[in-house]
């Protein structure tokens, strides 16, 4: 990996590590955010990390068939649908509870 980096080309591992960093930050934000909108943003970060993984594999390992790029297009589609439905749920929750605090969305707790 280091020899590739020193010779000037970006290795596959660099993309994978970047995606791992982004995914872990998304997980941390998902667990620790108290604002419901920020939770949705963290989910988007994680989806982007997965997309970076798919795209780098598609370029480095599957350069002719690029199935990873097709998968990324599908992931982007599903992410758009998820964001729309998630924010609609958030709006109707806000209408019922008048808060966006995740700690107070405990209707289904016991």
């Amino acid at each position: 990996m280091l020899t590739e980096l020193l010779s000037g080309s970006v290795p596959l591992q660099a993309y994978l590590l970047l995606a791992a960093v982004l995914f872990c930050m998304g997980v941390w934000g998902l667990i620790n955010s108290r604002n419901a909108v920020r939770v949705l943003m963290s989910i988007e970060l994680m989806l982007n990390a997965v997309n970076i993984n798919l795209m780098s594999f598609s370029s480095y390992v599957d350069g002719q068939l690029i199935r990873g790029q097709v998968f990324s297009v599908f992931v982007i589609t599903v992410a758009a649908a998820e964001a729309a439905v998630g924010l609609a749920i958030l709006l109707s929750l806000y209408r019922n509870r008048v808060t966006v605090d995740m700690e107070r969305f405990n209707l289904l707790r016991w």
Partner: protein
Amino acid sequence: MTIAASTQLICFFALSAVIVLGALGVVLLSNIVYSAFLLGGVFLAVAGLYLLLNASFVAAAQVLVYVGAVNVLILFAIMLVNKKEDLAPIPGLPVRRLLSGGVCAGLFLLLTRVVVTTPWVSGPTPIGEDATVRIGEHLFTDYLLPFELASVLLLMAMIGAIVLARREVQSVDLVTGEEVDQGLIEKSRTPLLVDQSRG
């Protein structure tokens, strides 16, 4: 090291820095509006990475869908629910944050180990700018069923979002059965966005 290769390397590191710092800002900043705009920056930097990986179609889709739709949707949601509220303190919050940070660091170490120790095979040379044509061929031959299902999924998500976010206003009076003026009902309801500047 040729000029093209070093340019690629510099672009990669600049985009990585933007992504990592932006994501840190998204997660850590206390003002949610700043977080939303930083999220847009992260999406744009990810689109730049796709350009580095010879995927111009997916980069354009990323900019259009994420920056143009998802980020704007998030900004609108923030505007609709942007009530300044003091969150009630929870006992043991720092401990919780440290614990989850440890879990995430462990996950990152695991992923790093997998990435470094796996001997990745290098495949055939990428097809470069023909990628868009190849994606089109994929979408209409072997990925036709997922493609059509995605359209149904988008329709379902659209209808579901409308149903969930709609304000339930009765337009017919239950007692008399007459049509009721929508504006009067809206005014008689308790306002959703309380103006806090007066009190």
